[in-house]
């Protein structure tokens, strides 16, 4: 019997007002008001007498669900409730809930709360089976609004069709039976049929049949791979089960095994006329261009590079720090909140999987341009605004609830990301040295802990290897699979698991650990048992609901699960800890030593694969890459008399990519754990854009950790090689700006690209990777971890056009800082201080924001001169460590003009500087005011020095290019003297600040 409770708020709660604002905009003058009421469904055992159930519902409403200071409630049997509702003269009504089977953390929490009340014995409460949370929306609208219009509103603003469902009724049309059916569906959805295992007729299939099997099963395997599988089964003389084929598809997916980065690549470079310049064969982008330099650099402080779930370096004599960054792009495109939520949740688990405590997170997002008109958004694509809000909300929810400060990030807007947003999440961890075991033994138990397994996130790994839109989405919706590829997070489940993990680690209870990410248990257990072999009983896996097929259990990407190898002798103690922390623990089987993956269901073998074939049977790929630079177009020259630089600067500051991200940064708890010594927002009013975060993770030591990033896809439109070099330089100089040295700095790469089967795309990617090799070696900085996300393409069903994202590389840097008390921020400190420009300015306006103002990309792409850059980084670090620097800011988007403006308004002070003093290198004719103000040449800093430190600072910088170009003023003034000694830019700092602060506040 089903009962319900509706909560009636007596004060205005503003979470509802966002929906009301959207409703007002959507319905226009027809709209009067919107109310949002929480609604709960309670399922008792069918034998519970009605009066006992009704009493329990009343107690639950009063004591558990309602906040009686500000809410009243009503409820009872759902049937009666809905009939009463239909009889009332209610306004338009929407009932919304998660789709059946989709995780409902609120309902699960409410059930736990009920059980605590019941267990106390004081209330005499009956057994309750389940609580589901839902929502009722009441809208007062002018008469005549159609049901379809209401439904459209609900789908656009209140629910996401993939994971939620709703019923809508305009006044006078409420049908109690439909409401009843809807809520009953919440409880009776699991298939009652017994689990089945299918055999796939593959052994004797023709090539076209193999391709069909792959396509229809969303396996994302090509013909060569299907044929390798066929050869294996011909060898063992049988056909594969669905469990086995799914295991292979997951393990061999681009997402899990990075086929493109492993492939042998035939790479050809052409000049702009199409003449071949250079041909080469690259023996694996990853192995030869990313990993090889790291091994060549032989840094003794690297603890683990590329082999574990996160890269690890030595922090001090007792601790190591780890860092991992990942993307969750496809899921975020379809369900922004859930996609970003579980994206962050997943990367946090990567750090947990190296036995570390997560101490900070980073996030970088790329979206379509804000306020894109609806007619320019393809069908089946969510608006950039909705994606932006959902993604930020998802990261906020997971990061804040885990208690991990989000300390560094970036947000970029470009129409190339309209259908394929990018969501990068990174997490940094801290662990005592030698705390992470990788030592599973024959006989160790296979233990899964954390969340239960459901049908959520099935085929995530293979799905992410297929472009969005077109066939995949169509096939997905036809089979109901698009819905299930989206995962739903429950951060508190993960927090419990983390608390447990750290205790179990310190007690040395496990011999190995990994997380369940893409591919679920199949990948986690398959990898953990790769050397030994493993036997798993799938019917033991705790399920959210009945009815999952064995293969679904095995590949589900349900969140918040970790797999551990636990020696049998430690199992009892491990279970006791789990019980204490409230974490579900299940023994699934053991590590066998037979080199086989053996999967059982109720004792019957449903799959058996040789580990050797599973992990080494993937046929190597050979791919073709071509690079031809775009034909150069001369950049437009400004007339000599041009005086519009003030307006240019204001426009660049209010470009959404440059503008303040405060509205986003403040919804993240960036100070939890108390270690954020340099916060993301700095300055006299706590609102200036800090260059990098500094953490002081240990209470009894001043040693710190610097975290920064570099990204600029616009340069990639000209040349991905220099884009990558500039991204590396930017990540380094952001860290150097706050006081880091290069002595113990490591890098992470995250490549997001389109379809690598297109030779031109792979050519761009190859060029970017080549730069990673060259600059890692030149700077002497190793990559220690990285990830790629390919196939970020969208096929528009209407036009049939394929759109790829601009090739995008995120470089994350982290560095150990000897003494955090020496760190500096970018806000100007004191009037009368001197301003120095450090580094050489070249006429590099290609891909710049100055060019963007004119709707251009062309011009000279900024290039990194590593010898000069290294001298600058080292000297500047010496000056900062010597206490000679009051503030320091790197020059990036918008060049000198933007950097000076940001320093001025962050410090609440003015600046005056003279372009004639700017150290310049390049053709004399290109030395223009525009180039000096807005060139984005890398490796440059603007530095504030007190007059008393002038001599010391200049001495420290000897041998580098630098010049004093101006000074700090008390007044609200920003004045620039141009090359002909006339004032070329003059405005108030407060005007600049306003231009910088306004855009995203409005967008949010």
């Amino acid at each position, binding site marked *: 019997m089903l009962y319900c409770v509706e909560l009636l708020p007596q004060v205005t709660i503003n979470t509802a007002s966002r929906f009301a604002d959207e409703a007002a905009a959507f319905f226009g003058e027809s709209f009067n008001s919107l109310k949002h009421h929480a609604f709960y469904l309670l399922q008792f055992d069918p034998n519970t007498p009605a009066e006992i159930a009704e009493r329990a519902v009343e107690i639950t409403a009063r004591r558990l669900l309602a906040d009686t200071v500000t809410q009243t409630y009503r409820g009872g049997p759902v049937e009666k409730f809905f009939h009463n509702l239909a009889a009332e003269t209610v306004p338009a009504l929407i009932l919304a809930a998660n789709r059946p089977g989709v995780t409902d953390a609120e309902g699960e*929490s409410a059930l736990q709360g009920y059980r605590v009340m019941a267990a106390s014995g004081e209330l005499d409460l009956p057994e309750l089976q389940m609580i589901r949370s839902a929502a009722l929306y009441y809208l007062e609208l002018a008469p005549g609004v159609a049901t379809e219009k209401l439904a459209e509103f609900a789908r656009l603003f209140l629910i996401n069709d993939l994971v939620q469902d709703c019923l809508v009724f305009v006044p006078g049309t409420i049908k109690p039976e439909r409401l009843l059916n809807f809520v009953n569906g919440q409880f009776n959805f699991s298939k009652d049929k017994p689990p089945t295992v299918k055999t796939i007729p593959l052994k004797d299939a023709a090539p076209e049949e193999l391709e069909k099997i792959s396509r229809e099963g969303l396996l994302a395997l090509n013909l060569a791979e299907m044929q390798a599988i066929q050869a294996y089964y011909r060898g063992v003389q049988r056909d594969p089960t669905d469990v086995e084929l799914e295991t292979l598809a997951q393990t061999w997916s681009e997402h899990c095994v990075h086929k493109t980065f492993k492939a042998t690549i035939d790479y050809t470079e052409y000049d702009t006329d199409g003449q071949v310049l250079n041909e080469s064969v690259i023996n694996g982008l990853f192995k030869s261009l990313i990993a090889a330099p790291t091994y060549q650099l032989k840094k003794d402080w690297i603890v683990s590079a590329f082999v574990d779930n996160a890269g690890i370096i030595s922090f001090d004599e007792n601790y190591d720090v780890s860092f991992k960054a990942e993307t969750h792009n496809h899921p975020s495109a379809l369900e922004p909140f859930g996609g970003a939520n579980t994206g962050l949740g997943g990367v946090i688990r990567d750090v947990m999987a190296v036995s570390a405590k997560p101490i900070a997170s980073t996030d970088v997002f790329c979206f379509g341009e804000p306020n894109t008109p609806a007619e320019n958004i393809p069908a089946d694509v969510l608006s950039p605004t909705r994606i932006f809000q959902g993604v930020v909300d998802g990261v906020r929810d997971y990061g804040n609830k885990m208690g991990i400060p989000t300390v560094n990030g970036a947000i970029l807007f470009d129409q190339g990301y309209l259908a394929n947003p990018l969501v990068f999440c990174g997490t940094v961890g801290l662990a005592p040295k030698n705390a992470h075991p990788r030592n599973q033994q024959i006989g160790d138990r296979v233990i899964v802990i954390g969340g239960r397994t459901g049908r959520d996130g099935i085929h995530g790994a293979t799905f992410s290897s297929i472009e969005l839109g077109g066939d995949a989405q169509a096939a997905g919706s036809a089979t109901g699979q698009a819905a299930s590829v989206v995962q739903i997070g429950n951060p508190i489940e993960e927090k419990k698991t983390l608390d447990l993990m750290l205790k179990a680690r310190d007690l040395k209870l496990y011999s190995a650990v990994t997380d369940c990410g893409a591919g679920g248990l199949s990948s986690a257990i398959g990898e953990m048992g790769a050397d030994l072999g493993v036997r798993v009983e799938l019917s033991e896996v705790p399920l959210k609901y009945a009815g999952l097929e064995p293969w679904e259990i095995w590949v589900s990407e349900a969140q918040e699960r970790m797999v551990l190898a636990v020696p049998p002798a430690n199992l009892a103690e491990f279970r006791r800890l789990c019980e204490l922390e409230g974490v579900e623990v299940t023994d699934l089987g053991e590590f066998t030593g037979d080199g086989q993956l053996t999967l059982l269901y109720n004792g019957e073998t449903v799959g058996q694969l040789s580990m050797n074939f599973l992990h080494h049977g993937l046929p190597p790929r050979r791919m073709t890459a071509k690079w031809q630079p775009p034909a150069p177009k001369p950049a437009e020259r400004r007339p000599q008399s041009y005086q519009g630089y003030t307006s240019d600067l204001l426009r660049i500051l209010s470009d959404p990519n440059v503008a303040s991200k405060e509205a986003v940064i403040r919804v993240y708890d960036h100070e939890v754990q108390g270690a954020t010594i340099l916060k993301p927002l700095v300055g006299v009013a706590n609102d200036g854009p800090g260059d990098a975060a500094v953490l002081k993770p240990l209470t009894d030591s001043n040693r710190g950790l610097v975290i920064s990033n570099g990204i600029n896809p616009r340069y990639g439109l000209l040349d991905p090689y220099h884009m990558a070099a500039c991204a590396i330089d930017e990540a380094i100089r952001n860290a150097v700006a706050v006081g880091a040295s290069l002595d113990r700095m490591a890098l992470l790469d995250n490549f997001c690209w389109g379809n690598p089967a297109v030779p031109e795309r792979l050519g761009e990617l190859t060029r970017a990777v080549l730069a990673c090799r060259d600059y890692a070696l030149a700077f002497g900085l190793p990559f220690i971890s990285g990830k790629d996300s390919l196939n970020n393409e969208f096929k528009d069903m209407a036009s049939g056009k394929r759109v790829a994202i601009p090739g995008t590389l995120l470089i994350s840097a982290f560095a150990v800082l000897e003494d955090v008390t020496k760190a500096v921020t970018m806000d100007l400190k004191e009037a009368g201080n001197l301003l120095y420009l450090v580094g050489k300015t070249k006429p590099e306006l290609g891909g710049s924001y100055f060019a963007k103002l004119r709707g251009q990309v062309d011009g000279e792409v900024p290039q990194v001169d590593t010898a000069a850059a290294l001298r600058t980084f080292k000297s500047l670090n010496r000056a900062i460590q010597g206490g000679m620097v009051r503030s320091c800011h790197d020059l990036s988007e918008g060049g000198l003009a933007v950097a000076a403006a940001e320093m001025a308004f962050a410090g609440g002070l003015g600046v005056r500087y003279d372009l004639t003093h700017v150290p310049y290198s390049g053709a004399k004719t290109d030395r223009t005011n525009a180039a000096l103000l807005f060139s984005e040449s890398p490796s440059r800093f603007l530095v504030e020095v007190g007059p008393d430190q002038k001599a010391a600072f200049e001495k420290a910088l000897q041998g580098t290019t630098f010049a004093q170009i101006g000074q700090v003023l008390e007044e609200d003034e920003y004045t620039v003297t141009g090359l002909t000694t006339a004032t070329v830019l003059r405005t108030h700092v407060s005007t600049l600040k306003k231009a910088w602060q306004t855009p995203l506040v409005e967008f949010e």
Partner: protein
Amino acid sequence: MPQKKVKVLVLRAAGINCDAEMVEAWEKAGAEVDLRHINEIAGPHANTRLDDYAILGVPGGFAYGDYLGAGKLVANEIIYRLKEPFQRFVESGRPVLGVCNGFQILAKTGLFGDVTLLPNESGKFECRWITMQNTGSNSVFLRGIEQIYLPIAHGEGRVAFGTDVKAEVSLKYCGPDGDTAASYPWNPNGSVQNAGGISSPSGTVFGLMPHPERFISAYQHPHWTRQKIKEVEGAGLKFFTNAVEYVSNEI
């Protein structure tokens, strides 16, 4: 003879996440601290008695995900699993501190009467520093504190009162000139009476939304790079030393 250290119990539950900082603050204030999961105090794994401690600290976080309202589900556990020892602890006059989620938990046990915390009026979570003014209350935690600059980080900090309130507002959000009627952004969440901290009439139970445990070192202050560092301790430590001294000298 060295004096025996004051014993503090810091309570933990699934989703509490500011426990390490609070433990550090109490230790820095001179106390001996045990961090315990609620399942170690109640239920089959209980190994800890509330009665053995002089001070109870409830840290911030999102206990049980803050579903059904911030702090509600831990409050529910205190009510149904720890009712008597908790009541005994409070009634004996031993200090109880709830910070952020800890404050929400204390409020939702009904300890302060009809006091609750609602979603921020701004409709969103906010993390930033704010200034608070002592109203002149008798709270043992606030001795010697006039005005204090502290970080907040919450989405449900809007204090609301019902009819039967058994507490007083002891800390109020204020503007730069100390104006305790200042509205947003000075009052970050829309609390009635600018209430940011609430005390029991006895002055021994205290809940507040800002995080004093995040300001126990000068280097946690957002402007430390702009100032000469004179004191290496942060002003937030005073809340903790006050309670420890109160127990040492007056109980």
